[in-house]
């Protein structure tokens, strides 16, 4: 076992899959000689060569569209968006071509699209977004978002092996802040939720960076026993795991770093309202980012992103309800 950061675990997943399967290639902007804007593919070009570590033109629609073409003739492309925000320029290829292909004509599209997402570092309105809900609303795309190094590796390997298009959200804030012992070689992590901490008084549901916010905020609220559910996968959504936790605690707080309206958490809240009404002992509460673009200046940005304090306050209110 080696200690790896979240970022190193992502690199390791791709490196191991590329070693094991020559159909796997990575493509994106500045990922070759430069090693990627965040250095996720640092050194890859030396090991795998420029054909399999492909520096592309600055054309997101082109990256997704050509990845689709390569996939249907037998490659397994991993496409990197330099920042998740730029997926808007490749939206059409992803949603209309990749997402609908198998349903329409029985031809699966085995692509993985990596989206470095999330804010908290003055990235401003075009380098901070969490666009996962756009794709949850687009049939035919799977959406996953790891919070730990172990899951970053296992979910990415599963995404590459999955026959369907998978949107893989890697949170930039976690890249070098989160680290742990990670299994060597390859292993696949299922697209299901995991319990990040067991508890009996309150359930906090989160994914990506918000899992860490949830853990920190609820570590000690006057000794309350707080369960934290890490969704890991948004499509498919692990309804069983969500409902099992709600049945156990009867109180739920749902976190999103994304803008509030129609976020992943809104869907989770709807599932609970529909299927666990009788199990609830309080309102389903949400903490999310208000519906505005992510501003640049630190005090403005920090005023919007769900903070440990905001989560703690919401959790306390629910515990006292």
């Amino acid at each position, binding site marked *: 076992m080696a200690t790896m950061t979240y970022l190193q675990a992502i690199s390791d997943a791709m490196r191991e899959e590329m070693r094991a399967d020559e159909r796997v*290639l990575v493509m994106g902007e500045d990922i070759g000689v430069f090693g990627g804007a965040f250095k996720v593919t640092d050194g890859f070009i030396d090991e795998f060569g420029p*054909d*399999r570590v492909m520096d*592309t*033109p600055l*054309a997101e*629609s*082109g990256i*997704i*569209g*050509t*990845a*689709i*073409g*390569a*996939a*249907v*003739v*037998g*490659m397994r492309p991993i496409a990197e968006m330099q920042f998740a925000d730029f997926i808007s320029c490749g939206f*059409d*290829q992803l949603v*209309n*071509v990749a997402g*609908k*292909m*198998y*349903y*329409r*004509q*029985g*031809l*699966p599209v*085995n692509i993985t699209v990596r989206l470095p997402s999330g804010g908290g570092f003055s990235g401003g309105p075009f380098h901070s977004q969490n666009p996962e809900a756009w794709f949850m609303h687009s*049939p*035919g795309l*799977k959406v996953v978002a790891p919070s730990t190094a172990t899951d970053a590796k296992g979910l990415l390997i599963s995404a590459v092996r999955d*026959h*369907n298009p998978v949107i893989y959200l890697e949170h930039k804030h976690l890249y070098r802040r989160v680290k742990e012992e990670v299994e060597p070689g390859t292993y696949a992590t299922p697209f299901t939720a995991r319990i990040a901490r067991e508890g009996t008084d309150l359930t906090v549901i989160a994914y990506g960076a918000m899992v860490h916010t949830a853990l920190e905020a609820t570590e000690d609220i006057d000794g309350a026993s707080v369960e934290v559910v890490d969704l890991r996968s948004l499509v498919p959504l692990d309804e069983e795991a969500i409902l099992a936790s709600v049945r156990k605690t009867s109180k739920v707080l749902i976190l999103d770093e994304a803008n509030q309206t129609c976020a992943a958490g809104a869907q989770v809240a709807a599932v609970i309202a529909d299927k666990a009404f009788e199990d609830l002992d309080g309102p389903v509460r949400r903490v999310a980012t208000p519906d505005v673009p992510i501003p640049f200046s630190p005090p403005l940005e920090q005023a919007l992103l769900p903070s440990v304090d905001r989560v703690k306050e919401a959790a306390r209110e629910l515990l006292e309800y």
Partner: protein
Amino acid sequence: MATKTAGADPAGVVTEHLTLEDRVALLRYMLLMRGIEERAMNLYRQGKVPGSFYDGFGQEAVSVGSTFAMSAQDRLCILHRDLGGHLVRGVTPARILAQYMGRADGITNGRDGNVHFGDHRLGCVGMVSMLPDMMLVATGMAMAFKLRHEKRCAITWFGDGSTSRGDFHEAMNWAGVQRLPVIFVLENNQYAYSTPTTSQFAVDPVERAATYGFPGETVDGNDVEAMFEATRRARERALAGDGPTLLEAVTMRMHGHAAHDDMKYVPKEQVEEWRKKDPIDRQETRLREAGVDTLAIREEIAAAIEEGTREALANPMPDPATATDRLFHDGDEILLGDGNAPWSGFAGGAR
């Protein structure tokens, strides 16, 4: 770098690469395309084709001629006025008519309509309505072929309207930079829905090819043999590692954009002028002069369409309970398969 191919003498020999049998096959596929689409329009008027109906009347030579130059291992992204491409690859009239009518055994099993289909088992990917998205998909296929050092080629078709969108640029640029084995067939049928080319571009898009670093060639899109020959040469270039080619097939959309469109925005004289250049008439004249009994071929095609119609009408509508099925694939890998490649040049396994 753009070159112009003069329209061939209607009775003359366009290329030495076609046998008489090949030339008859080209007529056959064009007749089949027109016949199926005429039948589908009747079925539409009878209320048996839901939605609207789009055809390629007058443009048959473009898809038939170019697809005829493609090998079984080549891969295709086919546009909505290019039914002939599907026919050359081996899709049967019954499945096509079932597709139009939204039946269970249509190529998309009722999930998509009209010519929005591709039989992946025959190496074809179905188009989406956002044009020209498939230019990038074809470019990606070619990228994989080059990466794996395979002697194969990808081809895609798109209209004059498509040249205004960004994906046209992204695909042309990408294919040029990487010198990919891909053929872009720009089907210039003079109108994007009701918008004439004069409102779409200041420079003929075939001229743009040079700016991306590869040749553009204007072809008589109503001459099936010229389309075949231009595509054959583009494919040779691609397989030789010389990169992409843009072929501008100049033709005319002889019907409205779809069944509901009376085309009042097109001057009548323009339509009449183009009617004289009908691609089927031209090929039929050539073959008659070569001693071929084209009437017998017409009868044979009509019978095949009758049979296909009967079969399609007998096919049930899809089961509503299946509407949410087949969203994600789990199981064995499914890839594009090889299609028919009827050109005599491929006989004996030649590529």
